[in-house]
């Protein structure tokens, strides 16, 4: 088949035509079919991490992540089958048991849509982290981090080429780290804000916004900043 030819596939019983290079997700969206995603962002490289976009392809033994699976001729795709819904609901329930997703409207919407029970896993280990407030620009609350990798990707080759962040730990206890857990001002971070822009929760949040949400008035925030600066000068 020549590259320029369009691709014919079926999604949810509907015959559709996709352009070459499209993923199943692109093809579904082009006809208004909604497939939920967590880790995917247009500014960062899709890595198929969250698996929330999995769909069932007729004849395939496992579910396929729609965000990275190319649309191909004659595929017969179901985006809401029983298997798909079970996986999505369970992923959300397991995630909600580990991470504070209360500040993410999108995740809350998905929880509701898939009737995911945030109390499904009693006694689950939470990824609790202290809020890191080590610079004037933003705070990091990794107990809200869903490990989508987007901040690491934005900091590295996808946007900023700064490489201040990476993943540390392993498995459930993975987390976003800096070199030997250095405070951000002692890393290569240039405070460009790209990581905050791609964060799907409030794990990374502008400091003023964070303080306003904590109930501080703007004049209090300004006073606090001034004090921090003075302390820093005295310290150095």
């Amino acid at each position, binding site marked *: 088949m020549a590259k320029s030819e369009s691709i014919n596939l079926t999604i949810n019983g509907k015959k559709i035509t996709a352009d070459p290079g499209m993923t199943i997700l692109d093809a579904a969206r082009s006809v208004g079919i909604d497939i939920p995603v*967590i880790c995917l962002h247009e500014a960062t490289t899709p*890595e*198929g*991490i*969250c*698996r*929330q976009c*999995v769909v069932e392809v007729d004849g395939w033994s*496992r*579910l396929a*992540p729609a965000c*990275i699976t190319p649309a191909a001729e004659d595929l017969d795709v179901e985006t809401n089958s029983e*298997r798909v819904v*079970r*996986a999505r*609901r*369970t*992923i959300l*329930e*397991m*995630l909600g*048991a*580990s991470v504070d997703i209360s500040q993410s409207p999108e995740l809350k919407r998905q929880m509701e849509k898939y009737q995911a029970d945030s109390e*499904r*896993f*009693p*006694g*689950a*280990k939470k990824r609790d982290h202290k809020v890191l407030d080590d610079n004037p620009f933003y705070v990091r609350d990794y107990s809200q981090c869903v*490990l989508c990798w987007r901040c690491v990707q934005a900091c*590295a080759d996808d946007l900023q080429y700064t*490489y*201040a*962040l*990476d*993943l*540390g*730990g*392993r*498995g*459930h*206890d*993975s987390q976003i*780290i*800096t*070199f*030997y*857990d250095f405070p951000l001002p002692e*890393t*290569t971070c240039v405070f460009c804000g790209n990581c905050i822009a791609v964060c799907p929760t409030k794990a990374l949040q502008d400091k003023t916004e964070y303080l306003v949400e904590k109930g501080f008035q703007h004049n209090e925030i300004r006073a606090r900043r001034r004090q921090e600066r003075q302390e820093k000068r005295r310290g150095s």
Partner: protein
Amino acid sequence: MVFDPPLSSRLIDFLRTHQGCGREMLLPALLEAQKIHDYIPQNSAAEIGAVLSVPLAEIYGVIEFYSMLSSQPRAETVIRICTTPSCASQGSGELVAQLCQHLGVDIGESTVDGRYVVEEVECLGLCDHAPGVLVGREMVGEATLEKIFEPEGHPRSEIYGDPRWLTLRSGVIDPLSTKEFQEMGGFDGLRAALNCPPEEVIEGVTRSGLTGRGGAGFPTGLKWQSCAEEENHPKYLVCNEDESEPGTFKDRALIEGDPFTIIEGMIIAAYAVGAAKGYLYIRGEYTRSHQVLREALQIAAEEGFLGEDILGSDFSFEIELRSGAGAYICGEETALFESIEGKRGFPRVKPPFPTTQGLFGQPTVINNVETLANVSLIFKIGADQYLSLGSEDSPGPRLFSVSGDVVKPGIYEISRPLTLRELIFEQAGGVRDDKEIKAVLLGGAAGKFVGPDGLDVLLTNRGVQEAGLSLGSGAVVVFDEEVDLKFVLHGLGHFFAHESCGKCYPCQLGTQRQAEILDRILRNQTLPGDLQRLEDVGATMTDASLCGLGQTASLAVLSAAQLWPEIFAAHGGGDG
């Protein structure tokens, strides 16, 4: 606050030697720093980053990924005690407690004099000498408190089989003598292969019906063919010796007993697909195998079996030895590539498959150790005779690692159709102390349980498939009637939670949730609905995980739930 020791001149020399190699040398450099200081000081990490051009955060990410690397000072000698099923059922838990009491420390805590630290680790490949312990770089079998401090020498695996094809020389010859190796047919296969055009070599392997012995069972000839068809060069040949499937120790025994047969298989494979460079990746815990291979590779190069114009042909090939650093996931082929490339061992999304984009993005063939030993054999005896071994649907000999409560644990080379019952009772001498069998774990942690009623399954590809099982890496762990399966399941749960890389959600979260429920079951605190939770978690991991680890992480647990539902019943009655 920890103050860094001064930068070591040994590390500076190491980095000078490898300057310009780039990130590929990151893991070797970190292992070197770890060896020098017993941890990786910040200044060493920073120096490594500067010389190899790796961003600092990513260096720390790599240190954090591998269990054998540490960013914090650690005692001089790490005592690693295996707590996976074969060893757990032979008392490794009690040994950990004894040792901690003896040293006056908790797990992970260094002794006051800074000499020892105790760690629980996953399978060390000493399953036939359970409980297995790694003391510094020394392996200790049938470990006791006394033996840990006065090791009695490297534990050797007994190899059984009549006749022996793959293991013909193991334990018989001096493993480092090419003379003795060749007197028993070594390099005959290589000579035969180099006399044929590469296409015929691939055809021979295809005709032999050889399938991969690492666990996935992919047809070897097909893999080679796909790589050979790629026009992109260079191509790589990788030998996967990251054997870490709990209950499996055959690859270690093959390497330690007959390293040249693996080198021979690698050369044949490289010749067939047109690779000029090979990597031999060996897990970090296999210290003895690493030593043997290093010497064997040097001897092979000195005697002209590696390097330019091998055996007078115009084929040139070299092999680089690489050590892992403690990560089960690096046995997954793409995670292994990432590891060689100096990254965290995250599996890649497939496709693209390794044969098109593998190591360094180039066409790559990656084969398991036993698979490569089979390659040598095929060209030594010819595909026709090879086909007469094994069974029609599973040609060739196959190694089973048998451990647990059997009279004769060891490696069994099987070259005829045989049932699991025959393997355990006729070959391995049956269950110890004439006890009854309660369960067999077939295929390792990624495999499934078989109950006493399922022992007549034929150990061929088709036989196990019909029984809904898989041979996997050929691990057979036998549990007698006195073993508490809750304890075994709990161990399996922790194994996967510890070894999940954390990349995809189903496995990162699912292995943890599964372990939590298995903890409750062990403590007799099972909640109503826990079985349903395990089933949902398991289905999600199997159906939606990115790689084979997550896809198989619940198989053993769910197979146990089918065989012994009573284990999973909610405490105090009825499960929801």
